[in-house]
């Protein structure tokens, strides 16, 4: 049943957007269908696949498990926000170099979970990496190259900081 619309504001990848949304609209639908951030993917209906992972107010969330109205006033980062001035983020570089993807459907979610991990823990162990992407299913890669890529990016980011 259509319900009364609610006015919300969200900051996505550094820019504020306003929208009138049904209270039941999911954040993932707002991001994809209303705001056009189609890099946020949908892979399930139970919150299990992680394809929809974004960073909301500094934490990684599954945007299919959040209502758009709950994101009112929030700052969100999607995969589209990783690139800076046409430069790929080191994680994106590492995913490309290590072929950490095949179909690419899980990739945006993997990248955001990895981004969140590295923001907390710049030198994660393999175990910590696997744990961090536990909520991000990949059906193509067997995770081998994803783990490898996250390690490589961590190394590159910490050495570029040190240097």
């Amino acid at each position, binding site marked *: *049943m*259509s319900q009364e619309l609610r006015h919300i504001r969200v900051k996505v990848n550094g820019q504020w957007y306003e929208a009138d949304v*049904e209270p039941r*609209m999911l954040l993932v*639908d707002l991001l*994809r*269908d209303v705001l*056009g*951030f*189609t*890099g*946020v*993917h*949908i*892979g*399930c*209906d*139970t919150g*299990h*696949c992680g*394809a929809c992972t974004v960073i909301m107010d500094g934490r990684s969330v599954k945007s299919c498990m959040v209502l758009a109205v709950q994101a009112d006033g929030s700052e969100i980062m*999607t*995969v*589209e926000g*990783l*690139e800076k001035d046409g430069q*790929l983020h080191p994680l*994106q570089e590492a*995913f*490309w*170099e*290590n*072929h950490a*993807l*095949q*179909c*690419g*459907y*899980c*990739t*945006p979610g993997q*990248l955001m979970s990895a981004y969140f991990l590295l923001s907390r823990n710049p030198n994660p162990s393999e175990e910590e*990496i*696997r*744990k961090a*992407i*536990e*909520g*991000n*299913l*990949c*059906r*193509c*890669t*067997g*995770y*081998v*190259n*994803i*783990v490898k890529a996250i390690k490589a990016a961590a190394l590159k980011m910490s050495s570029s900081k040190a240097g």
Partner: protein
Amino acid sequence: MSKAPPEIISLYTQDSSALTLKWLGKPLKPKEDYRLVRGRGTFVDDIQLPRMAYMAFLRSPYSHARIKRIDVSRAKSMPGVLLVWTGDDIKRRMRPLPQATPPPARNAIDYPLAVDKVRFQGEPVAMVVAESRYIAEDAVNQIDVDYEPLPAVVDAERALEPGAPLVHEEVGTNLIAHVHYKWGDVDYYFQHADLVVEAKFHYHRFTGAPLETNAVVADYDERADVMTIYCNNQAPMEWLPQLSAGLNMPYPKLRVVTRDIGGGFGTKLINYVYMILAALASKELKRPVKYMETRTENLQAAAHNAERTCTVSAAVRKDGTVLALRMRCVDDDGAYSRHEPAGMTVWAQVSTGMYKIRALENDYYAVFTNKCPSTSIRGFSRAPHLFMIERIMDRIARRLGMDPAEIRMKNLVGPEEMPYMTPSGGIYDSGNWPEGLRRALEAADYWGWRKRQEELRRQGRIIGVGVVVGSDSAGPNMAQVKMYNPGLPYTGGTEGALVQMTPDGKVRVILGSSPQGMGHETTAAQVVADVLDVSYDDIYVQTGFDSFSSVYTMHSGTYGSRFAPIGLSAVYLAAARLKEKLAKIAAYLLKCPEGDVVIENGAARCAKDPQRSMELRRIARIAYGNVNELPPGMEPGLYSLAIFRPPFQNPDENRRANLALTYSYNVHVVVVEIDPETGMPKILSYTALEDSGRIVNPLIVDGQVHGAIAHGVAEALYEKYHYDENGNLLNPTFVDYLVPTALEIPDMKVIHMETPSPFTPTGAKGMGEGGGTAVQAVISAVEDALAPLGGELGESHADPETILRILKGAARGKSEV
């Protein structure tokens, strides 16, 4: 049986003289990945069109029921609802879907929406198209259906018994087809065997669960009278007869497009039912219509693999030589034949596995049940068949007190016998399989593990080691389907490609395939770069398939590991022809004898006089614009189109034929430890050797090996569908259908051999399905762990409960099977 006759070998052998080997084999960064790491792929659900409407389905809660009445009035009257259809509305608009099955199964009536009766849980019963996804789903909930539940048939063997409920009354039986295969003198070998080893195995039901579910956007353009269908079907042109039954439009008016596809693994072959429904609705409403399947719909009702149950007996000599096999198999194909019963023939690609088995008999049945329709999930039909063979090999070894590695070494086809012809007429193209086994054993420290296993066993730990061999037979000969229905007009296995040098000297490539993450843009660019010796970066491969621009045949698509052997061969041919034309033009312009023209580094030069040279882009400019400079009479432009056709033939009267173009080889060695408390196996070590011929891009080949192992491990340990006796699927969501995460999939060691195929111009072989080898390997290891306790596994899935039962049985001092 023995080396293939020379006339066959020369028929199959391909010319590869246009290769420069400068670009093949390099780990070039995949072209697709750049857009995908930026979240800029175009998946079906990313397509937004003006005035787009959304489709949703009401699905049957019953596996088998008569539809007595459907009341759509409440749904229809909801604001925002544009259309509500039931089976009757569809029946008025289209012919039933064509059936590939022989009579009487051919009498089955199949519509994309259930008519009169539902035959599996989750079958669509009614559809709503509305202004938004949310409204469409709301309206679905307002449709009332009166069902009269009917007894269901969920067990394939029972489905064949007299009096079993009939899935299709019109057919009069649940039998889809029966084929009796017999190759070689099976009876003789069984009479002369030292021993006969017998077992019964079940290959369980699972699915590919690609992360992107089925999706379609149909957009009918009334002005042009053109129907555009954006879809994620893996082989859209294979289904032209189906689309035509649904849409009744001439093919030139039917534009089918794929872009990025979020995985397929065989599940996305039979989503043509959604393509038809969305297209019919779009035509009716004159608006674009989108459908995006939910995960639960996908797991419940999209496509499963066919379960297979086989009894296998092997005629064996005391020294471990396996002489012949006798089998009886039953495939459970589910409620409709939308792709199956192809599986009852496709296994014959690898009839005798990797071994010199001399004769084989297989009494084969395919049946309808009240379960989700099945298709060709990764490893299709060959994986279950190799499972049967590899399992019986382990049983034979145990009976003879031989090591499983030894019995395999003893029976493997040797390199001197390649190309090897199997009793069923298959032609294994190349490889040194015993050497591959040796290398894999060494890389895995197999003998070291055997020693450690003994020591650890003494400490009470339950350790198992599995070693199996397998093949991705690849690039199928579709004439295989003639073995169940000789009347089918569908044979061969071809693919098209267009390679165009544009006037600026860059290269545009269009493929007939519909990849789902296999890196076709990358490998096609590498082959073109290699043949033309131009930069990889100057090659632009169109993403996906478009029936308005792609060169296609009715085999086109991405399934059966066919791109490397067949698709890339078309790319090679098109590029080689383009190179010839460039050389002709260069010869004329450089005043150089044609045979002396060398195309290298983006230029053409005269071998005799290197001063005389010209960049290819200058030639390109001339070919399109400065045409008076071209050799007289030469056709302008630099378009090159090729369709590769392997020299396949139809099965003969004894059903002998080569059914695939290439046969890659893999050996997997796995070590598991079983937790005695939980019964859960843990993988301690995983090693895979892969020989898939010439490696075009090692990043992509390794990725495919990893993915195939992950799927195999998942199938063996985590993923299994459970139906109850009423045909209710008990685990249709990611909560209970256990797709493994990064914590469950082990690290793996992958090593390679590289034996080019003589039967493809690039030398590459198809790979990526893994031949189910990982399933075999894990089950083999688990059974090896349980063997001293007297336990054997009868299935391709080793769930902890079964293992615990075996452990408890052993504790009680008796063995269980």
